[in-house]
């Protein structure tokens, strides 16, 4: 038995990636789950609009952080709603139109909306010891939950899940497909065949692209038909976002396979990119609840941006104009990752050219 144990440790030591995973994973999970994983919402980005709005803002409990104030112009209510639609705030307080202030809450930010709602309910029933002025200011508010009035979890999960599935097919499955070729020794044969590297690259990727798109359509159809998730925005904007995101995940898949020798290694690496995306992209835990020291990681992950796009478009009918930043980031990341993947791919498909 001792011989067996010694052999096992020897092999473990040789397999650097497994070793790294064993050490990195617990630390990563500890950091993520310890610092990042939180359903508690401490900051609620808020906009205020209408006469007496500034006073109302003053009167709000501390967790409501005023992000913007009505600059004038069109109707305050319309402005406030656009702020929510474009994802600039989770709560909007509008005064002037009704007797008391109207509070608009973005239901597509589930946990933030719940936290905001709790605050108002608690205030109104006097459970929280607040000053008289606060109580007076929000005593007669009317709350409206927009986009997800019943605060259903499925509304926010399914647009996010669509992204996870694209990561799964694009990165995990694709990386396996290319490594299989290398492991079987057939990649070398492809290099000798009358195929251009681009033929091999595209030929390898197109099937997975088709599968990813089919999966996406299925998830959306089931989400809309079975779970009643609304699709309010433009299909074209969503499609463009999905296309850019698939571009990133496929590129990542090929890149992973180009640095892996076996399918096991590819799976390991792919899972290492999948896990942080699932945990940190805002899919489960709200981004604003993630500690700033870890949150920057979230802003590097492509799924963060796709989740933003898919929720914005599906639930809030967010127009493309206010989504330019996630679109630009995905396009940039996709170009970088795919460029790197093609460069690595060429090295063993055109040995004369790349060396």
């Amino acid at each position, binding site marked *: 038995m001792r011989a067996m144990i010694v052999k096992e440790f020897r092999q473990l030591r040789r397999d650097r990636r497994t070793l790294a995973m064993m050490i990195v994973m617990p630390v990563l999970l500890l950091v993520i789950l310890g610092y990042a994983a939180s359903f508690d919402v401490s900051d609620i980005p808020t906009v205020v609009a209408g006469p007496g709005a500034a006073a109302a803002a003053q009167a709000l409990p501390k967790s409501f952080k005023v992000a913007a104030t009505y600059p004038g112009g069109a109707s305050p209510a319309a402005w406030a709603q656009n702020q929510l639609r474009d994802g600039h705030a989770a709560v909007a307080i509008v005064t002037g139109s009704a007797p008391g202030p109207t509070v608009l809450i973005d239901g597509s930010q589930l946990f933030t909306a719940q936290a905001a709602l709790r605050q108002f309910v608690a205030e109104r029933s006097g459970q929280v010891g607040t000053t008289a002025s606060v109580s007076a200011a929000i005593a007669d508010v009317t709350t409206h939950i927009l986009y997800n009035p019943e605060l259903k979890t499925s509304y926010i999960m399914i647009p996010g899940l669509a992204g996870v599935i694209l990561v799964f097919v694009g990165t995990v499955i694709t990386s396996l497909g290319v490594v299989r070729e290398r492991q*079987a*020794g*057939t990649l*070398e*044969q492809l*290099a*000798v*065949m*009358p*195929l251009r590297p681009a033929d091999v690259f595209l030929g390898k990727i197109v099937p997975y692209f088709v599968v990813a798109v089919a999966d996406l359509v299925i998830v959306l159809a089931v989400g809309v038909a079975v779970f009643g998730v609304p699709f309010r925005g433009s299909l074209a904007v969503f499609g463009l976002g999905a296309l850019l995101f698939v571009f990133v995940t496929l590129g990542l898949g090929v890149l992973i396979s180009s640095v892996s020798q076996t399918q096991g290694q590819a799976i390991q690496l792919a899972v290492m990119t999948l896990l942080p995306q699932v945990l940190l992209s805002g899919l489960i835990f709200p981004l604003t609840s993630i500690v700033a020291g870890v949150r920057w990681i979230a802003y590097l992950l492509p799924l963060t941006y796709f989740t933003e796009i898919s929720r914005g478009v599906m639930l809030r009918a967010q127009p493309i104009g206010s989504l330019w930043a996630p679109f630009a980031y995905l396009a940039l990341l996709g170009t970088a990752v795919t460029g790197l993947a093609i460069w690595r791919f060429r090295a063993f498909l055109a*040995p*004369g050219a790349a*060396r």
Partner: protein
Amino acid sequence: MTAAWGAEAVSVSFGARRALDQVTVGAPPGQVTAVVGGDGAGKTTLLRCVAGALAPSGGPAGGRVRRPAAGRIGYLPPGPGVYDDLTVAENLRFRSAVYRVPEAAAGPLTGEYLERTGLAAVRDRLAGQLSGGMRRKLAVIAAMLPGPELLVLDEPTTGVDPVSRADLWWLIARAAADGAAVLMSTTYLDEAARAAHVLVLDAGRPLAAGTPAEIVAAVPGTIAVRPGPPADADERRRAWRRAGTWRVWQPDGVPAAGSVRPDLQDAVCVAALRAELERAGLAGAHA
């Protein structure tokens, strides 16, 4: 010799290790050229260079490779060379599609090759479920199917049973008869003896080259057969075991009783011994 493909003074390094050092090999059309040598001699590296899967190291200084356009090369890599999760027929169809072999030509040819090598009955079986020999035959057929001008086969017969080996040799001979320049590696010297030209590699360097007869004729001295290992320490350095007896190379010996005519296997052993003695700076090296 017309338009021989092959390598000229090719060198390849992997990091600090020199896998091939100034190796030249020609592959004339219609003939079989065999590269022999032990494990790590550089056979696979040389064949990869000729096939185009690997570039010689150091640019133009690494030597020159002459090969036809990619569509006119058939290459059997050291691995399986076929897709395990495709059937025999699907593997061949993929190959003829990539090489744009018209169906009218590919169909009958595929039928004939499969029939002749006993694979016709397993057309629809997954390549991964074939025996080692059958899979090797399939891979060679796949490489031959487009009718290449240059056919590079990396150890097509290693680990294959004698019947399948005979089938493989039928395929190889057929490719050469059809005009292909066949460059193959093997660890079996009886196979190399059937080739028109042989290159013996050792540690990335050419030990001997020529027709099998030329290589045998170039053995200096004589070879003596002994029942047991020679007692003399100097003789033992020049001795090897073969079929239950011992053979000793005598660089300055004259044919006498107890000496045998060397064959290709003896010639390769002598060439390897000479290289070893030369490295050690011992007598007999420059005989």
